[in-house]
């Protein structure tokens, strides 16, 4: 399977050239996902994936597996980040430590679950990439390079927000690829809402609201995090199902701000890969 085909299977649209870093992302995914992404799909998979095929929307098996492999990369990233955060000594207050412990527990569980599911489909889970949470020296969230406790802590929280808000949008963007397989779709939705709980709490820990207003990344977030809130369908979108929800009534519930907060938006597969790739060596 070519890398282009692999990435195209993450997306149902035909957006081309939206990302300056797309080529970088392609190169990165080639390396991180080589084993997973390039794996040929065994022919005998059909009976294992589909219990109840909804003919019009049923997705191919390799699309299901590719979706799960992308999810696994994102979960590897989050689990590694929170595990290292807890070991870094940067978290010193009991509230932040407790929050990171709880999130770490869930992200590690998601890694295990996704690996088990991929194995159960007769596929080999992708190997864990080597992560660089300094993003080439831009950040020092674990205070390994002399940033100091205060700066490291701020970056630790900012990166967590970026990863959680990305996770929510990425899972949402992949849900359609699992239609027709009730068990996998439901499990993905169950992970998706846990990521949203995490996102809300990390945002609140940073002094923000738990929900996203327009495409604002929020105070203290580095400009490099803006793609988390942009994309082909930016978080500021208020058109839902062809209807501009700001026109559905008057007053506070229908302002552009409230109307954007009330709906989270999707990231396409290559948008999510581009964000994750900033932290993959």
């Amino acid at each position, binding site marked *: 399977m070519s890398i282009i085909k692999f990435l195209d299977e993450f997306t*149902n649209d035909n957006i081309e050239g939206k990302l300056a870093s797309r080529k970088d992302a392609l190169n990165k995914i080639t390396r991180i996902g080589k084993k997973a992404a390039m794996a040929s799909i065994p022919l005998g998979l059909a009976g294992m994936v589909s219990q109840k095929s*909804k003919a*019009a*929307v049923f997705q191919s098996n390799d699309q299901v597996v590719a979706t799960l492999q992308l999810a696994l990369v994102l979960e590897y990233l989050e689990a590694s980040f929170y595990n290292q955060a807890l070991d870094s000594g940067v978290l010193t207050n009991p*509230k932040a430590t*407790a929050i990171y412990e*709880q*999130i770490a*527990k*869930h*992200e*590690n*569980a*998601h890694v295990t*679950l996704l690996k088990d599911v991929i194995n159960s489909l007769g596929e080999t889970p992708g190997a864990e990439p080597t992560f660089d949470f300094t993003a080439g020296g831009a950040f020092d969230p674990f205070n390994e390079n002399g940033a100091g406790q205060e700066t490291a802590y701020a970056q630790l929280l900012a990166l967590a927000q970026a990863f959680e808000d990305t996770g*929510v949008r990425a*899972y*949402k963007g992949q*849900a*359609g690829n699992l*239609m027709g397989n*009730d068990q996998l*779709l*439901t*499990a993905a*939705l*169950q*992970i*998706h*809402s*846990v*990521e*949203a*709980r*995490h*996102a*809300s*709490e990390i945002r*609140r820990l940073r002094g923000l*609201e*738990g*929900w996203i207003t327009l495409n604002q990344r929020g105070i203290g977030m580095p400009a490099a995090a803006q793609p988390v809130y942009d994309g082909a369908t930016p978080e500021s979108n208020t058109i*839902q*199902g*062809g*209807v501009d929800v700001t026109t*559905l*009534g008057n*007053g*506070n*519930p*229908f*302002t552009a701000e*409230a*109307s954007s*907060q*009330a*709906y*989270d938006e*999707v990231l396409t597969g290559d948008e999510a890969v581009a964000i994750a790739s900033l932290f993959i060596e």
Partner: protein
Amino acid sequence: MRNKKIKVEPAAVGKGNSRRKFLKLSGLAVAGTGLLLSCSSDDDGGNPNPDVFDLGGGDLGVLNYAYALEQLEAEFYTRVVNGSYWSSAATEEKNILEDLYNHEVNHREFFKAALNANFSADVVLPAQLEFDFSSVDFNNRNSVLQTAMVLEDTGVKAYNGAGKIIETAAYLVIAGKIVSVEARHAAAIRSIIGGDMDDFKLFSGDDIVDANGLDGAENPSVIIQAAGGFIVTPFTANQLP
């Protein structure tokens, strides 16, 4: 920036509580009235009681079901922001509950518009379901926050369980856009409640997220029974699991 004027919607007046019964909703005893609950997994499409509205099946059934839940949540927060707890609440809690009111009213109107744009009026759930919140004390912080937590957690389980019933990918995406906001709400309310007792993990607590790191997911029949304590207007979900 915030407009402090909250639109006051007329609260539905309770009536006909002769069939009052008590249901348990996640440990909260709530007063309930005559919800006709009749769910089955049969997809026979029949409506055995033509006098009672049936949600329908497939996309229509899920949209009507979501519309009912969003009506419930919107009505709850409408009463919250018109109650005395909210008017004197701490700024953070006041802002959160006002946002939740805004979001749920927006969701409710979205489903109303989506249903009426795609289905004939006779199969769209009525716009003014009647609710009974007599079990909630809107002057009491604990009562409001605990009820909000149950409603938001229930909303998450409901959308997570309904995804598999949806037939059209665009509707699945919209349900996904809404459920993650419900989960953000649930975490924020839980975070406030947890903060009161130094339980900093309650936002995503072990009581709601299982050992696999999975949130809840329940079928409509389970959710409708759980929420039935608040719902007065009878309807059935004969074509939903």
